[in-house]
């Protein structure tokens, strides 16, 4: 089991944003995390990646507890993530964004960097080659010298994924990667997901777009911070609780 979440809860004052969520992810899967707006999906991402600390509950990654660790430590353990509103290093070019994200693997020491040692140059050459590969994978190699803030929305989303891949994640968390994309871009992104799984990267994906269900090995549905269903895409699609959450009471017969 790659990721194991037990009784994860987060209260913001009186609001129970996430309430007793259990979830487990096996290696090599694409797992969907679905739910209506405000269900607590992004809060779960932030809890898993240490951006906010849980009120209670535990998170295990590769059998090591990572509950409430700092984001940079969780990244170093092998969890990469994107953000819903695609924050990037806006003043960096596309390529710089990815090269900058090669911060951990390989990690150069302060003195190595300062004195431009052969080891540092070797590391940077490696980071550079890998970045170009990633940009080719996500189809951004043609715009590698553009400033990230000048990229169209769809490209920025892809750059977010490219950046997260530079962490060499075992688990990749994608927050609404299809949001605001056109049909071509959606097909392209879904293709990339399949390629990533082939490379052995496990993906946990938040999405509103139900097209994603067809690609998920496993789906977790939540509403009002609570898990309402957990199973295969087919099971989740037929689950009355899920239908109720999405379409309202009268459809949930």
């Amino acid at each position: 089991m790659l990721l194991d979440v037990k009784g994860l809860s987060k209260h913001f004052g009186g609001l129970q944003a996430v309430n007793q969520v259990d979830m487990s992810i096996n290696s090599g899967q694409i797992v969907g995390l679905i739910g209506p707006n405000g269900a607590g999906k992004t809060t779960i991402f932030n809890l898993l990646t240490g951006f906010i600390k849980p009120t209670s509950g535990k998170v295990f990654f590769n059998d090591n507890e990572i509950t409430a660790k700092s984001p940079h430590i969780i990244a170093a353990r092998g969890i990469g993530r994107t953000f819903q509103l695609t924050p990037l290093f806006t003043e960096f070019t596309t390529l710089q964004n990815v090269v900058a994200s090669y911060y951990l693997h390989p990690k150069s020491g302060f003195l190595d960097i300062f004195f431009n040692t052969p080891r540092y140059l070797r590391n940077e050459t490696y980071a550079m080659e890998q970045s170009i590969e990633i940009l080719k994978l996500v189809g951004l190699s043609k715009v590698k010298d553009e400033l990230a803030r000048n990229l169209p929305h769809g490209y920025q989303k892809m750059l977010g994924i490219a950046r997260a891949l530079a962490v060499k994640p075992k688990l990749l968390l994608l927050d609404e990667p299809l949001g605001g994309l056109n049909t071509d871009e959606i097909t392209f992104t879904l293709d990339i997901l399949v390629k990533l799984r082939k490379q052995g990267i496990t993906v946990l994906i938040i999405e509103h777009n139900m097209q994603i269900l067809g690609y998920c090995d496993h789906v977790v549905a939540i509403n009002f911070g609570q898990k309402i269903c957990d199973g295969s895409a087919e099971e989740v699609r037929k689950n009355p609780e899920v239908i109720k959450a999405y379409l309202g009471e009268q459809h949930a017969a």
Partner: protein
Amino acid sequence: MLKNPFVTGRNKTVYIYVGLVIVLLLFPLVVSSTFYIHILILSFIYVIAAGSLRLISTSGQISMGHAGFMGIGAYVSIYLSKFLGVSPWISMAIAALITLIIALIVGIPFARLRGIYFTMITLFFGLGALSIEQLFSDYTGGYSGIAGIPALFSTDSKIPYYYFFLILVTVCLIIMFRLEHSRIGQTWKAVAQSYSVASSIGINELQQRVLVFAIGCAFAGLAGAGLAHYSLVLSQSNFNLLASMYLIVYVLVGGIASFAGPIIGTAILVMIPEMSRSLKDYVPLLFAAIMLIVLFTMPKGLAGLPAQVKGWFHRKNKGNTPKEVINNAS
């Protein structure tokens, strides 16, 4: 072979800097006026301070207490050399080191604050440092000043000071340049752009912001100590809030976005109060006017002027519109 954005290659601007250093090396041979030599020495000292303030700003942190750290460096060095009899050469180095350590200690809680809150806490640190120095006025002289600070050279001539500070500022700037134009500096710039993205790729952004703050403050301490052993007479008004503000003005007028910014800004602005004693009272007003004019006409400061002029002739320079990006890609 593609150029890695995080490895500095040969850069044309390096030749400009080398040329500038050569001109400055020859300057005292051509111009014998003590006054100009004095202004240049002051510029050298303040370029170290302003340059290090800009270095800190690359991580998105604006410190308003930078002169406070200059003061710490100055008074540590004065205490060691005047009262303990340490050679001023050694005391200057120790002063920089102690400033580094103090900045590391206060930097850890400071860095937890971001943006305006960080700026405010550094401002109060600067003020607090003044009060503490006032407490020890037996050693610092407080606002009435302290005289008889041990000199670096046993001569009345300013020429040895000129060459010493020229070498010192060159070495300091080379260090700052190397830091900035490497993965270290790029990491700081990444942190400045988005700390959440930075931490999501494994950067310990808190640690990085403390690191850059401490390094920058160490340079300020060194500059303060240098100022002490050059001026030989010093009062706390050299390190008050206004002095911190002036450093920010130097950086902004020169251009905070470019490495050359604080160098140009300091070189021009340091001479203004020195030009005439009667002008001295109006310096804040003058600086405000200069800053307004420069920032309105040259948003990137004086250092951005060449690129700005170039831009008037070639519209397309840096940064394409989204439409152009798509067109270029397809």
